[in-house]
């Protein structure tokens, strides 16, 4: 039986970031994934790093996450494309204008440097947007990551920091005795760890059950649409007042349309299926925002499963009734803040005084 200081179950952005920070601080870390590293939400998400869609209370964390993303070469790897962009959040009707002003004000209160700007100013920032907007909210702190490269970047960085990666290892049982955790895998192998971190994303409900913790985690199947490569048709990250659109053009010319329009999917067999009427709503909204997009062709549609708690706030921190057991996940816009959240949890594990009370899992128990 092999042994490790820290076993992290789930190799997404949250497990990966926590593990990386712990390893950099000298701990012996093993990351276990039932699939490959970052092939869950963290490898298939839209990669938008925007404040316009972040839950207000999470803005301070998203800002820190954004800063980390902007210098990945220092802490992660060069293998991942990140680009800073201006962010424009658009309102097309008077109701939306009201909503946008109100929401931007609250986000600003939590620390996002968002300002309401006129149509003219918005068009100066990105001449490609629909000229029929009522107003826009502007934030310089925006951009994107090419999320498909997450797995490559993290696995490289983790390996360089001597993290052991077990891929295609599905956890079936966790035994706890004499302050040690024995993780038993479906293939019969075992791993002993002094401490464990559960970071299984949309599977957290199931994984927490292994420790007799019962909480509800919703599974949101989200659709994403990508165009084939196009000449430059936009220059900003575009979102809308109600938060149901994220739109940007990557350096390679493809345009990614997201915004959380649900498809069909379940955790059990990782099955996903598109909902054509929602694809169409999402596409219409995108083409309305950037009219030139309509001349393009859709190259691919895919889905990812996102985790959400009942109050749509994260669960991060200690797992009650266990020594040295932690959980991290269900973070709204979790890709943006993931690197920072992971770092925070790692620092807490390393003994620093970090306040994670906002995310305490006890609120559900």
């Amino acid at each position, binding site marked *: 039986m092999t042994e490790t200081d820290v076993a992290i179950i789930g190799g997404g952005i949250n497990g990966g970031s926590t593990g990386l920070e712990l390893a950099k601080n000298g701990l012996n870390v093993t990351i276990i994934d039932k699939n490959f590293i970052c*092939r869950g939400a963290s490898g298939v998400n839209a990669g938008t790093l925007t404040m316009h869609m972040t839950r207000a209370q999470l803005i301070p964390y998203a800002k820190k996450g954004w800063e980390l993303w902007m210098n990945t070469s220092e802490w992660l790897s060069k293998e991942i494309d990140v680009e800073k962009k201006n962010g424009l959040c658009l309102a097309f009707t008077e109701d939306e204008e009201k909503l946008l002003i109100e*929401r931007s004000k609250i986000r600003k209160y939590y620390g996002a440097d968002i300002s309401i700007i006129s149509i003219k100013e918005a068009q100066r920032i990105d001449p490609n947007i629909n000229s029929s907007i009522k107003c826009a909210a502007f934030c310089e702190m925006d951009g994107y990551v090419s999320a498909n490269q997450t797995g490559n970047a993290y*696995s490289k960085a983790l390996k360089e920091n001597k993290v052991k990666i077990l891929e295609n290892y599905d956890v079936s049982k966790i035994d706890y005795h004499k302050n040690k955790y024995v993780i038993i895998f479906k293939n019969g192998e075992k791993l002993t760890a002094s401490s464990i971190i559960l970071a299984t994303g949309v599977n957290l409900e199931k994984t927490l059950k292994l420790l007799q913790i019962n909480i509800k985690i919703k599974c949101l199947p989200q659709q994403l649409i990508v165009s084939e490569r196009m000449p430059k048709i936009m220059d900003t990250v575009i979102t809308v007042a109600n938060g149901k659109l994220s739109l940007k053009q990557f350096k390679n010319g493809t345009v990614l349309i997201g915004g*959380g329009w649900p498809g069909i999917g379940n955790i059990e067999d990782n099955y996903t299926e598109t909902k054509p*009427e*929602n694809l*169409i709503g999402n596409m*219409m909204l995108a083409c309305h925002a950037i009219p030139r997009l309509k001349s393009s062709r859709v190259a691919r549609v*895919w889905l990812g499963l996102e985790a959400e708690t009942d109050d749509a706030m994260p669960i991060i921190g200690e797992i009650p009734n266990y020594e040295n057991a932690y959980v991290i996940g269900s973070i709204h816009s979790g890709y943006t803040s993931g690197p920072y959240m992971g770092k925070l949890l790692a620092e807490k594990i390393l003994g620093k005084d970090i306040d994670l009370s906002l995310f305490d899992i006890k609120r559900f128990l």
Partner: protein
Amino acid sequence: MAILINNRKYDVIVIGAGPSGVSSAVNCAKKGLKVLIVDLNSNTGGQIYRAPPKTYKSISKKLKENEIQKQLSNEIKKFKIETAYNHTVWQVSPGFKVNAFNETSTIQWQSKSLIIATGTYEKIIPFEGWTIPGVIGLAACTIILKAHHFIPSKKIVLAGNGPLLMLVAYYVIQFGGKIDAIVDTSSKIDWIKSSFSLMTNPKNFRDGIKWVFKIFLNRIPVYSNSTIEKAFEVDEGIKLKIRNLKTGKAKNIISETIAIGHGLIPSTDITRLLRAEHIYDEQKGGWIAKVDRFLRSSVRGVYLAGDGAGISGALAASDKGLLASSTLLYDEKIISQKEFDQNTYKILKKLDKYEVFSKAISKLNSTPKKIIENIDNGTVICRCEDITKSEILRAVDQGARDINQIKSWTRLGMGPCQGRTCQYAASKIVAEYLNYEIDNLGYLTGRSPIRPVPLDRVLGDFDYEKITKVEAAPL
């Protein structure tokens, strides 16, 4: 909503109007089922009996393929089967909903069962220079000749392997073109060995003899055991470096068009979208939808006709269509066990016979290890995204271990063709490199749209008010 929803529900939608699609549609229609047959081409025929453009007027009955195509169309008309030609299917979802676009809009149909008869596309093993305009598929060449009635250029080199080489050569000569060389990865002995099995199918065998005879009479240089190693653009056209795999000797040839193909790959776009089970069978063309003896896929209500569940060729196609549709009719309790047994007994026997034939063909079309090894590191493998062999191997060196992981790390297969052109070769390269069984690498997850779909055709003109209102995201 801009997608036109056709409220007619069909009992069966047959996707693909080649010989197997037509025979299954007819079989279902005969039993009174409401059938729709869909194809992106403008008529029946599929790839092998592809109809000429609508504007062409026939002046001769000498072209066998054309006569067969006409028969297929007549059958469809006779049984008043609804058709949707010129419609490209881009999405199929469980239930079943089939979405397709034509020149102006997209449409959605619904049906209880599906018969997938989407045939194959061509397997082409890359070599340095295969992306040069003027290098085309062998199957493409048959379509140019037999459906469109063009000779691609004054001079041509044919390369790859299998009977398609001979067939294309025959038609090029017949139509007045000039063949500079035939470059075949198989040896003459391979051909002789397989001829015994090929004889089990006398009709095709006779055709084969006719082709070979023509090649011989016209003294076309045939380079056996050989492959194209490199192609360069030169003023006169394309210069080829040909390598004999046995002796290692190289030779240069200059021509205008290069047509190359190494066999066929079953189309699995739709079965992968529907998350049907797939298995790897090299002899049948690589990844294929898993079917039982009666051509049921692992998804209830989905049947595979034709080459979709393994290459067995044109003659078997219509029988496979009959088998798949009879199974459907039986599952839907439209025909009795007895009728089903009667229908299928003969077909299964016939199909077993074809199997001997198609095995021999697939042997001739097998991919020599050497030509995979020979691929230069700088060669583009994924044409859509310009991903080279060395970029693929780099991802593997960094730890990528299945084809989807390679896809997300390199963008291989992320372009408009969705990996149809490169998946086979890329998997071969990686399997070779890692010394893995190729099926361990898995297959690319099916993603909609299976053909790039123009946004304007999906959306049409719309007002902002018409966009579905959704609940705002939590603040």
